[in-house]
């Protein structure tokens, strides 16, 4: 054997041995010794080390990938073993797993209520991101003359309910997976229920019945449609896992109906979403208790999760945080870009004063009262922190020809928020301007840097 050939053999052998360590521990422990021995035998008889060595090494790398994938799926299956509906009974026979009851009931219930509270701002925040596919479909339908042009409220509502459904389903699945056989079906039923409910609500024009000012009542009406569809779907998906699953229909309806009497702006009453959370949590708790009363042995021995090493937990948490951060910033960008596009479509003006006058006139044209005059236009106050020159208040005093509903007189001041774009000043919805202004800074949207540079000189 000449020297280059010997060096190649040594190199191949070393690479092969190093690669063997990359197998998952279980497989490595079981087979690595044999693989090494067989590889040595193969190479010992081989006349062409280069070809055979490459072939063996490439196949080993592929085998490692396959075993890693297999191991990951197996571990996933073991960790989620509690999720499976079939477990081994005392006599060794496979039996259907029974529903259990959370042992730390208070914390479980608190988690349920908090999740109901937290998913709403999450859904609001991601509304534009979830709205995009609906917007595309609705605009396509309008383009093909299947239906008339729809108000943006329709696709915003669909985006909101889709986000709400996915976040709610995920949070509840996390809380139920240890106790409810077929909790993955709960996820499907909940996400689908919110989605279908939103579509039904939008299809019947519920979004426009009460007008923009009653935004929370409008949301609540949508929730009622969602409650019904959600209850029916949860019953359908879980009727074999929970004996009294039919109760999920009135529970969800009641939870949704609890929002109806509330008639205040959404921003002020967000915390009242707690009420449906309490009702739905109490409902599922009651059903799990009933099930456990029928099968007391299940309640005594709830399935337990396998302990996951801290290192893996940290990696998992890191990955989740990284994905969440990516989704968050993508959502911020999409939301701000979409809102700026919409705002520009409604009109962009070279000066803030002109923008205020035009928007005040346009805004009241649609009401029963007519604008007689706009005076005292004032645009000097900056929004929130006073440092963002591209986000401003625009105020004016208006004189109407009659006293409109919920007003004491026909003359009063009006203030709205505006942001500066490449096309000029645009009206930004109440409360959204600081958020969009921040996103513009973050992603340098609408040529903000140039605007800031020009204003600083």
């Amino acid at each position: 054997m000449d020297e280059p050939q010997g060096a190649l053999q040594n190199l191949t052998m070393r690479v092969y041995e190093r690669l063997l360590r990359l197998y998952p521990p279980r497989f490595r422990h079981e087979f690595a010794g044999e693989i090494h021995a067989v590889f040595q035998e193969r190479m010992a008889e081989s006349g062409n080390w280069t070809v055979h060595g490459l072939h063996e090494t490439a196949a080993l790398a592929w085998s490692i990938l396959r075993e890693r994938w297999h191991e990951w799926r197996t571990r996933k299956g073991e960790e989620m073993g509690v999720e499976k509906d079939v477990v081994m009974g005392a006599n060794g026979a496979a039996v259907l797993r029974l529903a259990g009851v959370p042992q730390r009931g208070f914390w479980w219930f608190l988690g349920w209520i908090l999740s109901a509270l937290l998913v709403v701002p999450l859904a609001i925040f991601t509304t534009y991101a979830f709205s995009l596919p609906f917007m595309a479909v609705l605009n396509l339908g309008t383009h093909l003359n299947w239906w008339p042009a729809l108000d943006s409220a329709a696709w915003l509502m669909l985006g909101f309910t889709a986000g709400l459904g996915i976040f709610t389903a995920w949070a509840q699945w996390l809380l139920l997976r240890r106790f409810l056989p077929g909790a993955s079906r709960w996820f499907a039923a909940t996400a689908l229920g919110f989605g279908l409910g939103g579509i039904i609500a939008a299809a019947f024009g519920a979004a426009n019945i009460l007008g923009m000012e009653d935004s929370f009542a409008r949301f609540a009406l949508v929730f009622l449609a969602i409650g019904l569809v959600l209850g029916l779907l949860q019953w359908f998906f879980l009727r074999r896992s929970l004996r009294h699953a039919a109760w999920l229909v009135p529970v969800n309806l009641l939870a949704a109906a609890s929002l109806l009497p509330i008639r205040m702006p959404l921003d002020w009453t967000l915390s009242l979403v707690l009420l449906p959370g309490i009702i739905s949590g109490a409902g599922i708790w009651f059903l799990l208790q009933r099930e456990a009363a029928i099968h007391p042995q299940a309640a005594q021995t709830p399935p337990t999760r396998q302990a996951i090493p801290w290192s893996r937990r940290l990696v998992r948490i890191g990955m989740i945080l990284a994905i969440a951060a990516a989704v968050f910033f993508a959502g911020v960008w999409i939301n701000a870009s979409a809102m700026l596009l919409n705002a520009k479509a409604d009109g962009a003006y070279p000066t803030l004063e002109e923008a205020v006058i035009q928007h005040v006139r346009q805004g009241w044209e649609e009401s029963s009262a007519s604008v007689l005059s706009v005076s005292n236009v004032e645009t000097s106050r900056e929004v929130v922190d006073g440092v963002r020159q591209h986000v401003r208040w625009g105020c004016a005093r208006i004189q109407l020809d009659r006293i409109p509903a919920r007003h004491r007189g026909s003359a009063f001041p009006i203030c709205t928020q505006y942001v500066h774009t490449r096309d000029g000043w645009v009206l930004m919805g109440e409360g959204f301007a600081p958020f969009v202004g921040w996103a513009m800074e973050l992603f340098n949207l609408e040529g903000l840097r140039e605007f800031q540079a020009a204003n600083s000189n």
Partner: protein
Amino acid sequence: MQPQPLTETSFFILLSLAAEPRHGYGIIKEVESMSRGRVVLATGTLYTALRRMLEDGWIERVEDGDSDGDGRERKLYRLTEEGRRIFTLEAERLKTLVYLTSLHAAMER
């Protein structure tokens, strides 16, 4: 229930074990010989297939009593009843295909 058709690699491994239990290296050599050099199993590929067959209960691993160069006990692989059933079903399926093909060829003549 009718199992899915086997891959060529799986079929050759079962075929090599149908006659007698073999070591990993023996399986590779037998497959190479039976396929007249067309199917050359790499070691990693073989053991991934063997692991799957062990999990599916088609084969089992037994001690040989012999040891390899490093002093480790060598392992033999042999077909289980289930493995033999799967192999027989696949062989029957292939036989039927060959029969149908020859029938079709005869009718065209």
